[in-house]
C-alpha cells in the first residue's frame, strides 16, 4: 500500500508525484470502509433513512461515514487524504516547473492553476464530516461535489502534461472527467427537483434521474477512481540531490 510506504518508508532520494495521488485514493477507500463498518455496527438505521437516500433514491458510498460514531473513525483517514492530496499538488507543480521546457505555456498554466485550486478544494473533505447531511444536505453535498469536479481537472491536467499517453490512458481520463461532470449534474438536478417538490407540498418524492442510472454513474465513478492507480501512467520521477549533507 502506498499509504503505508509514504508514511513509514518514504524514500528521500526521489519523488513520484502520482504515488501521493494513489495514497490519497487508498485513504479515501479506507475512510469509506471504516466508516461503513462502524455505521453497520452502531447506526445501521442510517442506511434505511437519510437525506441522500430521499433525494437520490439510493445510498451513496459516503453515507457510511456521515453519522457519529463513524465520523470519528473516518476523520483520521480524511486527514491522510488531505495530506496526500496537497503533497501531490505541490510535487506535481514542482515537476511542471522542472519540465517546463517541453510543455506549451497553457498546459503549464493549467497544471499549476488546477493544483493550487485543489489545495483549497480538498479541505472540503474533513469539513463535510462536520457539516453532515442532517446539518445541511446542500452544504454537505456541495463540499463533496466540488472535490469531484476539481479532482477531475487535476487528473486531466496531469494527463495533458504526459508526453505520449497510451490510448488506454486517454480513454480513462476522458471517461473519468465525463463521469465526474455527469455525477455532479445528476446530484444537483435531483436535489433541486426534491426541494421544488417539497416546496409544492409533496411528502414523498421520486428522484428526477432514474435511480439505476444515477447509481450506475455514481458507483462507476468510484470504480474509476480506484482504477486510476492501474491505468494512469505516472509522469517523470523527481530525483533529489542533497547539497553538502549525506544520508546517514
Amino acid at each position: 500500500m502506498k499509504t503505508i510506504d509514504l508514511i513509514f518508508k518514504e524514500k528521500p532520494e526521489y519523488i513520484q508525484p502520482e504515488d501521493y495521488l494513489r495514497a490519497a485514493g487508498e485513504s479515501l477507500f479506507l475512510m469509506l470502509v471504516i466508516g461503513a463498518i462502524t455505521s453497520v455496527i452502531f447506526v445501521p438505521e442510517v442506511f434505511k433513512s437519510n437525506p441522500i437516500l430521499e433525494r437520490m433514491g439510493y445510498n451513496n458510498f459516503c453515507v457510511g461515514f456521515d453519522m457519529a460514531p463513524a465520523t470519528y473513525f473516518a476523520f483520521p483517514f480524511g486527514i491522510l487524504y488531505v495530506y496526500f492530496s496537497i503533497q501531490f499538488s505541490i510535487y506535481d507543480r514542482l515537476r511542471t516547473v522542472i519540465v517546463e521546457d517541453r510543455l506549451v505555456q497553457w498546459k503549464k498554466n493549467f497544471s499549476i492553476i488546477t493544483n493550487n485550486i485543489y489545495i483549497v478544494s480538498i479541505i472540503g473533505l474533513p469539513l463535510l464530516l462536520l457539516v453532515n447531511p442532517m446539518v445541511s444536505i446542500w452544504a454537505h453535498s456541495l463540499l463533496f461535489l466540488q472535490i469531484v469536479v476539481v479532482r477531475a481537472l487535476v487528473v486531466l491536467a496531469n494527463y495533458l502534461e504526459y508526453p505520449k499517453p497510451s490510448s488506454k490512458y486517454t480513454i480513462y481520463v476522458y471517461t473519468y472527467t465525463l463521469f465526474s461532470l455527469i455525477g455532479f449534474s445528476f446530484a444537483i438536478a435531483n436535489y433541486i427537483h426534491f426541494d421544488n417538490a417539497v416546496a409544492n407540498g409533496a411528502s414523498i418524492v421520486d428522484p428526477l434521474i432514474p435511480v439505476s442510472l444515477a447509481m450506475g454513474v455514481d458507483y462507476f465513478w468510484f470504480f474509476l477512481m480506484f482504477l486510476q492507480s492501474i491505468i494512469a501512467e505516472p509522469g517523470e520521477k523527481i530525483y533529489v540531490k542533497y547539497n553538502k549533507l549525506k544520508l546517514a
Partner: protein
Amino acid sequence: MKIKSIKLLFNPDLRKIQPEDYLRATGECFGLMILSSIILTYFFSPELFNENPILNRLGYNSIFISFLSYVPANYIALIFGVFGVYFAIHYNRYDLLRTRLNSSGLNSFKEKFSIYANLTYLFSLTAFLLVIFLNPENYPWANILIFIQFIFFRGMVVIANFLEYDTPNKFYKNYVLINSITSLIFISFLLINYINYDSCLASGGTNCKNTIPLYLGISIDYLWIIQGILYTFLPFQGESIKLQYSASFND
C-alpha cells in the same frame, strides 16, 4: 513578520527547506484556529463565555479548547486545524530527514525515541482535532481526554527534538525542563478538576465547582500556552536542507 502558511502552500522554495518554517506555519494555523473560535463564539454564541461545561469544571474559560466545539466556530476552526496538522506532519518529516542527513548521527536510543515520539505526535495531533466534533456538553470526558493526550505527546516530542541536539544551549535545556513539568502539572490539574466535579455531581451536589484554586489553574494553563507560542515562534533554528531536483522517466 511574513505569513509562512500561505507561502508554504502556494509558493514554497523547495530548493532550500528550513524545517522550522513548517513549525511556525503550524503555530500560525493553530493560533488562527483558536482566535477564530473565540471571535466567532463572541459574535454568534456570547452566552458560552458565561456558561459552558469546561468553565463549570475548571472555573475559567480555557482559550485553547473551550470554544472549539460549537457551531459555527467549529467549521472555521476545522479548516485552520487541518492545515495546522498538515504543516506539523511536514515539520516532523523534514526534521527527521535532517537528522538522517546529519553525518554526526545520533545514538540508536535517541534516534528511535525521536522517530517514535514524532510519529506518535502526528497521530495525537490528528486525534486532537476530534475535540471539534466532540462537544463537551455531550462528551465532557472524551473532549478533555483528547486534549490531555495532546498535551502529553507534545511534551514527549519536545523532549525528543531536544535530544537531537549535540550541544543544546542553557535556555533550550531550561525550556524543555519547564515545559515537561508544566505539561504534567497541567494534565494533573485537568484530571483532578474533572474527577472531583463528577464525584460532586454523583453525590447529589448542586453547586459543584473546580477543586484546583482558580489562580493556580489559570497560571499553569496560560504558562503552557505561552511555552507553546515560544516554541513555535522562537524556534531553535537548525540547519536548512539544500536540494537540487531533476526529472526523468529512467530509474
